[in-house]
């Protein structure tokens, strides 16, 4: 089954992706992120046609704990965060928990 890429974030963040052909964009203006970002992410997660969700790492702080946990742990669709460096998107914490040591420590 073919799926699409979805982008969630401010209009400035999504415009570039629309230029590359991404059509599933959830635009949430900067000042309304605290109220609307949770719903936008949830709608994207529930969409069966979406295989990858792209978000900016800073936007993760606007999400409620529940939505953040579900999006970070989600495998289908999988979340890719940009601008957060290595180990963003909860991966670093998960590695620490499963392996016991912080393998993503920046040198």
């Amino acid at each position, binding site marked *: 089954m073919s*799926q*699409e890429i979805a982008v969630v974030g401010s209009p400035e963040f999504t415009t570039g992706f629309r230029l590359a*052909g991404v059509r599933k964009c959830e635009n949430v203006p900067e000042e309304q992120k605290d109220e609307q970002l949770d719903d936008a992410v949830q709608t994207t997660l529930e969409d069966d046609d979406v295989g990858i969700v792209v978000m900016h790492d800073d936007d993760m702080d606007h999400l409620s704990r529940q939505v953040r946990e579900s999006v970070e742990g989600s495998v289908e669709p999988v979340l890719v965060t940009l601008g957060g460096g290595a180990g963003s998107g909860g991966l670093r914490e998960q590695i620490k*928990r499963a392996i016991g040591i912080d393998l993503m420590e920046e040198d």
Partner: protein
Amino acid sequence: MAEDVKPTRKNLMAIEDRIELSERGHDTLEQKRDGLIMEFMDILDQAQDIRSKLDEDYDTAQEKINMARAMEGDVAVRGAAAALKEHPEITTQSKNIMGVVVPQIESSRVKKSLDQRGYGLLGSSARIDEAADAYEELLETIILAAEVETAMKKMLEEIETTKRRVNALEFKLLPDLHENKEYIEQKLEEQEREEIFRLKKIKAKKEEEEEEEAEKAEAEAATAD
């Protein structure tokens, strides 16, 4: 826990069988956990390379789109973005690494030529094309990152489950089984000792009775004479 089992030979044999099975399972799970961690380490190196490329690509793409916005104006960039007709698609296939099903993502129509973009050659400038190019490149790296990070997440889940199972066997099930075995062995030894003591008592009593009978018989023989 140990008081719950009946101290019988049958139970002892059953517990010994369970201990053997649990120890075998523990060894196998330990090997699986170590194998998974080794596979994970390979993927981790790959993931770190992709992550740094992703950050680089994102910075370049942002630089390019900011330049296009500054030179052509936001409206022109948004207009070009709205005109796109071809959409990138991804198809997912699966691969099995030590029992963990990880996805293999294939993409199509990510990189597009100028005429495939649909916003026309005359209506846009080279800067918008450059920005679109940079974002297409970024999307390709995102798809790679998604594949590797999903594999990592799934493997981490499996490592966690396996680790929990190994620990449960090592620190809960096996100690309990050994405790039960010891309890039954001690009880059986105690029963054996009691049995020997009882037999000795019976033997002594019988010998006493025999002696008494012999004495009586001797006394009877003496009076008869």
